[in-house]
């Protein structure tokens, strides 16, 4: 049984469909990159997988006993968050909340998990800084650390590299590929960086308000749509 199965799923906001005709499977240990133009329904799909949005038709099934509290999610930042008075550590630790259930306070284990999240993202020096005083890229790394410290089966990343400089971006891609390979963590990532996507991902899902391609990365690179989107080697970053 696959971790996530989409069967003929479609999602809509008031009025028209945003994305439809979704048919794909994500198996444990996969690394799936969701690519496509702006407004092609990528973030909506991520929300659908997280059950923040119910499909208008079809279904999104989870398997392998996947529970919500085994998922690390990196949402796109909201305006209200950017000037939020909280320390970096408070934000990262809040990722552990779901693991607490109804218990009111964090345990030593939660704090250790938060510490290791902070260490992994290399933000120890920011630990006691105020979240709103950080740059966009630093904030993004804090939110990634929060996702890391709760994810035990699945990591769902919605444009994780937004605002992060090129050097750090490559480092983070390696880090994500690392946890995917070594710890068997399943990764689903929305990305605009098609070249890094095909470099690291095992599978590609290409959306344009409908599913244009789903399959192994190697097949995507050879497909018509893939070739058009990737562009000539060394050419434009995005088609």
């Amino acid at each position, binding site marked *: 049984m696959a971790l996530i199965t989409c069967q003929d799923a479609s999602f809509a906001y008031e009025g028209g469909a945003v994305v439809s005709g979704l048919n794909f499977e994500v198996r444990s240990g996969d690394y799936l990159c969701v690519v496509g133009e702006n407004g092609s329904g990528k973030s909506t799909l991520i929300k659908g997988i997280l059950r923040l949005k119910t499909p208008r038709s079809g279904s999104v099934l989870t398997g392998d006993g996947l529970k919500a509290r085994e998922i690390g999610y990196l949402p796109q930042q909201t305006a209200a968050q950017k000037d*939020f008075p*909280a320390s970096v550590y408070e934000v990262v630790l809040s990722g552990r909340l*779901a693991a607490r259930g109804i218990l009111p306070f964090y345990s030593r284990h939660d704090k250790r998990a938060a510490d290791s999240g902070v260490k992994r993202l290399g933000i120890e020096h920011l630990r006691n800084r105020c979240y709103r005083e950080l740059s966009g890229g630093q904030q993004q790394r804090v939110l990634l650390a929060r996702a890391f410290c709760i994810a035990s089966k699945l990591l769902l990343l919605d444009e994780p590299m937004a605002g992060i400089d090129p050097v750090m971006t490559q480092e983070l891609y390696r880090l994500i590929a690392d946890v995917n390979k070594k710890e068997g963590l399943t990764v689903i990532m929305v990305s605009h960086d098609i070249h890094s996507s095909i470099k690291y991902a095992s599978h590609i899902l290409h959306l344009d308000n409908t599913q244009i391609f789903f399959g192994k990365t190697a097949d995507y690179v050879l497909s018509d749509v893939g070739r058009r989107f990737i562009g000539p080697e060394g050419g434009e970053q995005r088609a």
Partner: protein
Amino acid sequence: MEMFSYPFLVRAVIVGLLVSLCAALLGVSLVLKRYSMIGDGLSHVGFGALAAATAMNAAPLTVSIPIVVMAAFLLLRISENSRIKGDAAIALISTSSLAVGVVVISLTTGMNTDVCNYMFGSILAMNKDDVRLSIVLAVVVLALFILFYNKIFAVTFDENFARATGVKTGLYNMLIAFLTAITIVLGMRMMGALLISSLIIFPALTSMRLCKKFKSVTICSAAVSVICFFTGVIISYINATPTGASVVIMNIAAFILFWAANSVRESIQR
């Protein structure tokens, strides 16, 4: 302090301190979630409910608490669904209940000092039952806030993330709305329907000038709120000014002080 030889003043101070404490704690979350208007809307609904209770000769708290709690859930629903429409809907509901309240009062007791008291508060409004009830409710609010502190933080900071990882965010939003409604009803008759929302909004905004952690913002706003209320009452006693307005003036002073302190600190750092 001779002012504490008056039993009504002691009652008012006890209720007021508890209410400002609760309001400040809840205010941090409401302000950060961009829900400040809900507090304002609820106080107007409370005004209408209070007027209706007076007209029916019913106990003010037993009538207004359920009505305001229901209004709180309604306003929360509206704000969650759509930001822009929610804004207008809150204004609609608050002016409507204000109008209903004024009409009910003028039909029954006539437009007199009662209306003024509801609008701007009266220190004489607290009786012994109010004190008992507010102590019980304040303890409940405080206990729930401490027990759910971490959840309130997570839901305030990033509702989508919390919901995605399996936290029942709707439940905690309702909890915050429920506690806010009760706090507003308790404080409204003393602070006045038009002024009570300042107890929720001011301390949070004030402490955000200086504090950099959620925990310190929370603790600081609780302290600011309690100190401002106490000094406000003393000033209103000495100068014979209305209590509610004096407390708000103290909150304004605290806000300016914190803002100035932050400006000084920033200019030193540069």
